[in-house]
């Protein structure tokens, strides 16, 4: 009898183990699918979807990605992370796309010891003093520095005017990094104008900039506002070159801005013409096949966040969040879509930066700047 019971219980255990092994590994994604920066979230999600089709399983288990919309809002972002951790029991999280929301969302992940990888949150604070927060993009001190150099050396600007969104951590920080570097290089900031997310009328700011007549306008802001500002500036006869950051690279910049955004320069994460890894080439093809669209920066970055998490799970050999964190922190020369990724101990990668511009209604690759 005892033998039978023990055999039965062994059998049960066996079943349990088998069913545990076939359970999917759940990764969370919190992305702005609606609201002010919805384009980033939607591009990212299509990138993750294609990436998941390309590499659908790890450790012999399928991967399940749960998506929560943050509505481009900080409070919703924080709630989304709690939901992913408490309800969906995710082992790792992808997101958010913008810095302010990632800072809001990272707190809960850090406390719950769930590793998080942001595709494109570039503000330095995102990973500062956080053990579990990583990213696959460069950070804004570098971006601001390179933008200032670009303005000074390549575009020959001696004076500049700033316009940025004071309700976004990304915009405020990037503007100040640019300002420091540009003044250090001997340039002069003639005007500093601000607005708030959701504003649509920029005529007073633009006329202010027009009245000081700078050589260049630095606008480290998101795509909708950037397009509208360019449009209002051109309508008011302000034809100075506009330089912006990685936040500009959404198709909406082109559709909303039209001819006004021609020759807008920006520092960016990625352009499909710079792909040089095998995974990148394969992904580019698959993306085109699945979506019928050309690969954009935000899809590629989000795919890298997915791939790097999968790689970490593989190297950790387990879906234990703490082990995934250790593996993530030791990522070295990982062949991502956007290039080789090495994660430094502070959670930031060593990544090259790209300069793009708008030409004939499309994003054109200008140059790559090595780290």
């Amino acid at each position, binding site marked *: 009898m005892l033998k039978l019971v023990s055999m039965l219980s062994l059998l049960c255990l066996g079943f349990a183990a088998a069913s545990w092994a076939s359970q999917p590994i759940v990764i969370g994604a919190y992305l702005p699918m609606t609201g002010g920066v919805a384009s980033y979230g939607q591009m990212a999600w299509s990138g993750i979807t294609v990436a998941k089709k390309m590499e659908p399983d790890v450790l012999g288990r399928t991967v399940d990605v749960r998506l929560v919309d943050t509505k481009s809002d900080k409070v919703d972002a924080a709630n989304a992370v709690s939901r992913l951790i408490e309800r969906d029991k995710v082992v790792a999280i992808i997101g958010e796309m913008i810095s302010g929301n990632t800072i809001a969302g990272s707190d809960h992940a850090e406390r719950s010891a769930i590793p998080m990888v942001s595709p494109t949150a570039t503000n330095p604070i995102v990973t500062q003093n956080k053990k579990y927060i990583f990213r696959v993009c460069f950070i804004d001190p570098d971006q601001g520095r390179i933008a200032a150099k670009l303005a000074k050396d390549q575009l020959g600007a001696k004076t500049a005017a700033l316009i940025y969104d004071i309700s976004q951590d990304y915009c405020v920080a990037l503007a100040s990094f640019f300002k420091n570097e540009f003044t250090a290089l001997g340039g002069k900031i003639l*005007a500093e104008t601000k*607005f*708030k997310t959701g504003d649509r*009328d920029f005529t007073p*700011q633009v006329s202010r900039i027009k009245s000081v007549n700078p050589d260049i306008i630095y606008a480290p802001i998101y795509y909708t506002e950037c397009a509208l500002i360019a449009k209002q500036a051109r309508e008011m006869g302000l034809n100075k070159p506009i330089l912006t950051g990685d936040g500009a690279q959404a198709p909406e910049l082109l559709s*909303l801005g039209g001819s006004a955004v021609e020759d807008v320069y920006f520092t960016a994460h990625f352009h499909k013409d710079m792909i040089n890894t095998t995974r990148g080439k394969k992904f580019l093809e698959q993306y085109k096949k699945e979506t019928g669209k050309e690969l954009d920066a935000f899809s590629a970055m989000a795919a890298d966040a997915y791939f790097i998490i999968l790689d970490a799970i593989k190297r950790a050999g387990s879906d234990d969040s703490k082990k995934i964190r250790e593996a993530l922190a030791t990522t070295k020369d990982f062949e991502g879509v956007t290039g080789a990724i090495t994660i430094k101990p502070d959670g930031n990668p060593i990544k090259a930066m790209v300069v793009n511009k708008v030409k004939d209604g499309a994003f054109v690759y200008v140059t790559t700047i090595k780290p």
Partner: protein
Amino acid sequence: MDTAFVIQQLIFGITLGCLYSLIAIGYTMVYGVIRLINFAHGDLLMVAAYIGFFGIVIYHLPWPVAFGISILLTAALGILIDRGAYKPLRDSPRISALITAIGVSFLLENLGIVIIGGRPKSFPRPSLFEGDLQFDQLILPYLSLWVLGITVMLLTLVLLIVHRTRVGMAMRALSRDFETVRLMGVDVDRVISFTFVLGSSLAAVGGIFWCMKYPAVEPFMGVIPGLKAFVAAVLGGIGSVSGAALGGLLLGLAEVLIVAIQPEWSGYRDAVAFTILIAILLTRPTGIMGEELPK
């Protein structure tokens, strides 16, 4: 700070102000008649913009036809919202209708997200509204002239309807005493429907011009202009049509001038607008042109 700069800012301020006015007039009319702050008003503006957008871009209609359809459909939606959401609550406490209005607003926004998606679309601007006049350093966009002209025209039209027609008389009577008017045999629901038609059409016109000026159409685009128009309506004295127009104008001018004259304050643009509101309400609770409260 030269005169040309200031005049230029006045032009921009008046343009923005007129847009607020157009939307605020619709707000104030509905409030005047049924004492309901129709929070869905800003979202009607969004619906109108989307209809105009689809008409021109997807169905390739000529713009006057597309805009006409947009205004008609938005007016119809206004009646539908009234009949579906507000009428059943006509005799309930006012707070129930107010909360329903917020519900309708969320419904419209989220329907927009589900059906159309959250990414902004570019609103086409017909060539009639392109271009500008230039005097020396001053730029006067044709669109600003159009906005001003349309606002003045519609304001006059609304004032004529309210003060010179029978239905206008009924509207004014309703705002005084709902029950008595009903007892006198006036078809109250028809008068209210007419108010919604008028208010919603104004929101539609406002939405179309808003989008021509700021060509990004997305489901939440009505929230901020709606809120600002509400402030404008309260500023001018809610329930008063000319008050709403004046309030909108003042608000637009204040917002633009603050940023232009004190660029360091540009982040406080909304704060200043709302501070003006608080100041006005503290000194004159019924707004600039509102009726005196009964003693």
